[in-house]
């Protein structure tokens, strides 16, 4: 798999290591993953290099790769937009070039529901058939949209490869770090005055479980991986005990531009649209075809992320594992 150092990558490596059905796991990334094991073999691979595709093809050929997981995507926006474009959009092209030659049995791609974009015309539940509108002025989202379009084209051209795209709702949890967790870890959060869209999250453990399911199954196509239920944005803030700062749209955009330009916050101005409009997806298809149903409701996910346990202080995941 690529992107072995991401949260999902590490979790997948750990689960595959424990699973007797898999004999060998290749972890491809620019640095060794934190998860080590007997089956795990680390190969240094930089997807931004110009000839990485033939290098990758050699690796796939030599190890006779059966299932390829493409997860080398950024979890938070960066100011190095050129590099991000090279990694996500062009990196996906390299991966597909290699896969076109070698043709592994299965290709799993990690994407997000942000590719649908937050738009005033979005229905309450976006399905997998909904258009990938991407997001105006957001390179973070639009690079992922372009990568996903490439994978869809690849799937159409290579019907013998099982291509599966997982669109994860924003993943939150006590250990993962991404744009949303960084945003919600701040003590104050902006609120677009008078707007309160519904939000949706998926717990990190649920997300890792879904990825494992996708690797195991034979289902093809795109799947929304979402948590149970939705909550209004301000209720999420209230549950976490964050202080909402209501701002009129014009002010919020200017403040956000300033903070982003000075690199004080990790969310670009275009993210404010996600605080204005709905971007909620329907996970019914994943349940029917992939057999994945989330275990934790959104409230428990939020409380677990915030480290706010019930009276006994134990978090839900700790109790679920016990």
């Amino acid at each position, binding site marked *: 798999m690529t992107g072995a150092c991401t949260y999902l990558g590490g979790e997948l490596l750990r689960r595959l290591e424990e699973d007797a059905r898999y004999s060998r796991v290749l972890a491809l990334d620019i640095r060794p993953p934190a998860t080590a094991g007997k089956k795990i073999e680390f190969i240094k691979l930089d997807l931004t290099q110009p000839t990485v595709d033939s290098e990758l093809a050699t690796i796939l050929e030599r190890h006779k790769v059966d299932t390829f997981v493409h997860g080398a995507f950024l979890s938070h926006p960066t100011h190095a937009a050129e590099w991000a474009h090279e990694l996500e959009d062009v990196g996906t092209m390299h991966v597909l070039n290699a896969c076109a030659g070698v043709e592994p049995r299965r290709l799993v791609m990690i994407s997000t529901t942000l590719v649908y974009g937050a738009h005033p015309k979005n229905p309450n539940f976006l399905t997998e058939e909904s258009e990938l509108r991407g997001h105006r002025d957001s390179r973070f989202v639009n690079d992922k949209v372009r990568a996903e379009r490439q994978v869809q084209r690849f799937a159409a051209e290579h019907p013998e490869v099982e291509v599966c795209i997982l669109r994860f709702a924003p993943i939150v949890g006590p250990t993962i770090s991404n744009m949303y967790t960084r945003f919600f870890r701040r003590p104050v959060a902006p609120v677009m005055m*008078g707007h309160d869209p519904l939000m949706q999250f998926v717990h990190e453990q649920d997300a890792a479980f879904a990825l494992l399911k996708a690797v195991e199954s034979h289902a093809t196509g795109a799947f929304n991986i979402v948590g149970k239920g939705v909550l209004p944005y301000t209720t999420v803030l209230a549950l976490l005990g964050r202080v909402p700062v209501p701002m009129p749209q014009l002010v919020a955009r200017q403040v956000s531009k300033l903070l982003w330009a000075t690199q004080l916050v990790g969310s670009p101005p275009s993210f404010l649209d996600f605080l204005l*409009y709905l971007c909620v997806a329907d996970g019914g298809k994943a349940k029917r075809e992939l057999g994945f149903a989330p275990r934790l409701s959104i409230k428990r996910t939020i409380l677990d992320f915030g480290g706010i346990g019930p009276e006994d202080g134990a978090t839900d995941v700790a109790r679920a594992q016990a």
Partner: protein
Amino acid sequence: MTDEPDDEGTDDEWYGDADPRVPDATAWPDRDLGFLGSDYDGKAAARSDISGPVHSELEDEAVLRELERRVEQQRTPAFPLDLRVHLPLEGLWKRWRALAMWGRSDVVDDFGRDPRATARWEWLFEFLYTRWFRVQAVGVENIPAKGRALLVANHAGTLPYDSAMVMHAVRRDHPSRRDVRPLVEDTVFHLPFLGPIMNRIGGVRADPANAERLLEKDELVAVFPEGEKGMGKLWKDRYRLQRFGRGGFIKLALRTRAPIIPVAVVGAEEAAPMLGKVTWFAKNIGIPWIPVTPTFPWFGPAGLLPLPSKWYVQFGEPIDLAAQHGPEAADDRLLVNKLADQIRTQIQTMIDGLLGRRRSPLLAAFLG
């Protein structure tokens, strides 16, 4: 402490006699108590074992407290200035969370209806329904006790009071107190403050996908096919139904096999008679027009309050389109338009009937 009478020796019974094989706990040289001063270093403790009473209870407590503090320190990260110890931030934060959760519940349904918020606004609807508009609802029993149905109603007024009253009528007067999910036009749904409130009390953005999903879940859905045109009717056009959209509600009913219940609302036009509308500057603040009513721009926001007109709401007999047409009929555009017009005519007839019941045209609008 020593003045208190001893309990009946219950403690001794509970703990039993000391085991002679176990060395006395107090005899352990405690090298960790140096912090209490030179008297409490190990030697002193050991010495005190030999000679007479060990510690007073007060000193015991001090030791215990200090040990507790150290354990606590081990657990919390060592800041140069430990804010958590010196400031009651934890308590403040807990209070803040409780305060922020006031009036909202931590579980909403899929479309964002918040039961606690709904209950919070209930009194207002009850007041509007019984005291302000004095709504008379007839035919509520035409709504099925369970199962899906599509309520189709006329629309009027600058603010959607009519959808709120239809919702409240069914919740209040229907034997099984069903909840109606009104579909709200985009322009209203994305209004600041009003939009989220409508969403919390059950409103859903008018989108075919949303409506279909709700009907598949066997909910009651209310649509106002006139939409924005209905709300933007001028006073001179009152109670003249506008075009019924593009017949989307018919397609919806055919596809989901839901019966249509025509609803006529009379009184909403007089509650906010629109004398004219100003489109200048309206687009800049995100609304299609600025209404001009006898009260609105003149009295500021208070002018948006409705006039106390007398309302009638009539629920008609259910029309089961699915009995005559299959789901494939939804693609027959001519048929859809014809059916939409039939429903429209029927609602217009119901409205005219209700209007005829009023005694005089204008005064009756307020006195009933």
